[in-house]
């Protein structure tokens, strides 16, 4: 007698445990999984499913997309937006604008409880706001660009090149190194020359000697300006031309004669956007790849002179190299956190291809030792896209961004720094793509990369945990450009919450706050779309330009920001909140795995589907969903209020594959949401029918 799939009677395919969560596969998963869910709680008690609280919009007065948040000692919360808006969220969750940065925000905000100040990195400066909890003396003050451009005090710019030992340890050109504070444009004139000689400006650049150029080895970048101590202004317009070692012109800056002032520093400010990027720490001698500048006058035989140490030797000119506080990054971010591995409380700021550190040594005007722009140097082209701590390490995620959105890099790196070395302790390459949303939870550092969730917890490898979304544009005909902001991951009630994605060109990605974790050790970690945002949009389109800015949880309150363009073409910004005053989500749904009985080839028959639930609250709807052979879901009528079950007759639906589920709604203000306890499908295996025949 031939063997084959045989059953003697109808049977029920039942699911009334749900600890498996959302599956990657439509059919294969750990036990008690389902394919999708929206706004459902399947963890609190995995033997049932209820509806999670809704994200509700709490602010309509935002003018940009909040990308970072923090809280002061009194519980007041703050947010900074992508366009530089600064917001205060009081303890009643009223949102007010408290200022505007001079540049876009950089997804960074840190509150120091001791100084009672917010430290707010912009694009190339860092502003402060505080004292946050002080109510007297006019209240907190916004100090815009408190940490801005300042001058190098390094040997490579201050000391003359010493031909004897090949180092920049010759005579100092000024007393900049005696300053215990930073040298800024405000105090630059206090820097005094050490030389008494002069150099007369020629009218043309002279390269073939060493006395008509001033070479230096920068220790900070990007260059903001070069300030020259002018002795005599002469009659011509002055031009400073900055060259690299190959004499490529990096920029030439001209100041008209009328705007020059004798016997003081005059600033030649570079116009290049973001400043002149340069190699630091690489230029060791005057003959190695270094930088130099020339000074020329527009007037022949001009009397224009600068202060020098050696007569007619521009290389000994009294100058100061100014650099921006922060590198202007392509990704627009300066992720920021606190780290104490250095032995002191240290503000760590992702500074493009560097890690910048500040020991809070002088909020008024820190020296370059107190505020180090380039404490760590990463690979050229890398930019910090996330920062976190794990054990004794500061974990720094770097990505590479091209200037072409359609031709981005596929590269990333995780750097680990103990704070006790002058280079990262070790690194892990992430060639899969940019490691976004870096966040440490349970001492496991998670990040999103190329549509998947990865984790690292001390080993040599990063572990791919699971797919987050179908970040794969095969057959879509569009270039994927999916970005996740630095502050999109957070933890809420011991679960990892992931705002995903921030922005994308992929219309297949589902937007929302996704969760990962388990309610207890016995149950598996599971995944699901826990919170959709108040606008109700779930996918990007070229019309809506949907974005999530950040997702930050404070104990019982989880904030998530968003922006989109409405049907009228108006950009809307909002901040959602889930807290203990939230009511049930207005919509919810679940779809099961596809059932084929393990014999896809054989025809089966579905008789009826039963949903079991706790008495349905008044005002709620709950409908069954059925899909045959991967067709569109068909919904049945809703259960009435008070009912505890619902039968949906499938009308002898023959199938090879079948999928079921439910969808429902909750009325506003509901705090006792529906609770589903079981999904059961009655199936006839059709044992007497021919097993193999055409699907049609």
């Amino acid at each position, binding site marked *: 007698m031939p063997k084959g799939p045989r059953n003697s009677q109808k049977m029920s395919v039942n699911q009334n445990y749900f*600890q498996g969560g959302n599956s990657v596969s439509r059919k294969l998963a750990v036990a008690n999984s389902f394919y999708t869910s929206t706004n459902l709680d399947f963890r609190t008690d995995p033997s049932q499913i209820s509806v999670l609280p809704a994200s509700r919009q709490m602010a309509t007065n935002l003018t940009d997309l909040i990308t970072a948040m923090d809280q002061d000692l009194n519980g007041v919360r703050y947010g900074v937006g992508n366009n530089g808006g600064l917001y205060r969220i009081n303890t009643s969750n009223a949102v007010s604008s408290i200022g505007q940065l001079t540049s876009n925000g950089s997804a960074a905000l840190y509150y120091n409880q001791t100084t009672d100040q917010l430290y707010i990195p912009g694009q190339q400066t860092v502003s402060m706001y505080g004292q946050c909890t002080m109510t007297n003396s006019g209240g907190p003050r916004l100090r815009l660009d408190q940490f801005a451009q300042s001058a190098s005090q390094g040997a490579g710019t*201050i000391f003359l090149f010493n031909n004897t030992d090949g180092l920049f340890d010759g005579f100092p050109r000024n007393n900049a190194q005696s300053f215990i504070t930073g040298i800024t444009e405000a105090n630059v004139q206090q820097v005094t020359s050490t030389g008494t000689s002069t150099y007369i400006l020629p009218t043309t650049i002279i390269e073939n000697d060493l006395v008509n150029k001033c070479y230096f080895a920068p220790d900070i970048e990007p260059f903001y300006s070069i300030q020259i101590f002018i002795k005599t202004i002469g009659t011509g317009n002055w031009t400073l031309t900055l060259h690299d070692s190959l004499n490529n012109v990096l920029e030439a800056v001209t100041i008209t004669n009328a705007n020059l002032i004798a016997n003081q520093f005059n600033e030649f400010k570079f116009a290049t956007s973001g400043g002149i990027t340069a190699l630091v720490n690489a230029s060791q001698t005057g003959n190695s790849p270094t930088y130099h500048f020339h000074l020329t006058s527009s007037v022949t035989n001009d009397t224009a002179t600068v202060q020098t140490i050696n007569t007619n030797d521009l290389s000994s000119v009294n100058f100061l190299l100014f650099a921006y506080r922060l590198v202007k990054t392509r990704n627009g971010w300066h992720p920021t956190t606190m780290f104490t591995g250095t032995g002191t409380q240290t503000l760590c700021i992702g500074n493009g291809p560097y890690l910048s550190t500040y020991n809070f040594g002088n909020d008024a005007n820190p020296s370059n030792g107190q505020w180090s722009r380039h404490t760590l140097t990463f690979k050229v082209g890398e930019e910090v896209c996330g920062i976190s701590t794990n054990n004794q390490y500061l974990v720094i995620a770097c990505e590479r961004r091209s200037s072409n959105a359609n031709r981005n890099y596929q590269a990333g790196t995780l750097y680990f720094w103990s704070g006790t070395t002058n280079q990262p*302790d070790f690194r892990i390459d992430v060639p899969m793509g940019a490691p976004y949303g870096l966040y440490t939870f349970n001492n496991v550092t998670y990040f999103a990369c190329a549509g998947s969730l990865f984790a690292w917890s001390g080993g040599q490898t990063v572990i791919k945990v699971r797919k987050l979304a179908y970040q794969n544009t095969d057959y879509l005909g569009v270039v994927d450009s999916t970005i996740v902001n630095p502050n999109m991951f957070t933890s809420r009630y011991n679960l990892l919450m992931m705002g995903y994605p921030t922005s994308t060109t992929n219309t297949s990605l589902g937007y929302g706050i996704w969760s990962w974790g388990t309610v207890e050790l016995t149950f598996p970690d599971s995944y699901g779309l826990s919170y959709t945002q108040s606008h109700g949009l779930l996918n990007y389109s070229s019309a809506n330009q949907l974005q999530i800015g950040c997702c930050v949880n404070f104990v019982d309150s989880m904030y998530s920001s968003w922006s989109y363009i409405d049907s009228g073409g108006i950009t809307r910004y909002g901040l959602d909140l889930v807290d203990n005053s939230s009511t049930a989500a207005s919509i919810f749904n679940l779809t099961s795995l596809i059932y084929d009985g393990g014999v896809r080839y054989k025809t089966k028959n579905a008789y009826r589907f039963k949903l079991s639930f706790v008495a349905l609250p008044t005002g709620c709807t709950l409908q069954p969903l059925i899909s045959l052979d991967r067709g569109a879901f068909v919904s049945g009528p809703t259960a009435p209020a008070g009912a505890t079950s619902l039968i949906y007759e499938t009308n002898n639906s023959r199938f090879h594959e079948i999928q079921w589920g439910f969808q429902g709604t909750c009325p506003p203000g509901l705090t006792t949401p529906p609770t589903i306890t079981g999904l059961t499908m009655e199936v006839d295996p059709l044992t007497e029918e021919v097993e193999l025949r055409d699907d049609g």
Partner: protein
Amino acid sequence: MYPSTEDPNTDSAETYQNMPNMSMMFTMYNTTFGNGAFAIQPPSPGEVGRGFPTVPYLSLAALFYQQQASNPSLAPVNIKSGNNVGEQVVQGAYTNTDAAGTSRVLSGFQPGGASSILNTANTQAAL
């Protein structure tokens, strides 16, 4: 190990799939070669199954334990030395002498000296 789907008491609500994790934790999984114990249950139904097929659950935490045991991360080099931009200055400060007062070890930049073991190009004075 796995109940047969011929058992009328079996359906997809069973949680036995957690069990294989015990063995995989120690032997069957690594991040290079993946899950060596991967299996789909029921493996050979021989009938129309009454539930969904399942795969063994692999705990991330268990994997971390295994990974940390077999591939511990490197301990940091707990030394901060050498050229360190804008932060550290070593200038003739370290001299060890023996009991007779004779210098035995001398390191660091020597002011006025013709050479130095340090590259001082990017060092600066104490701030």
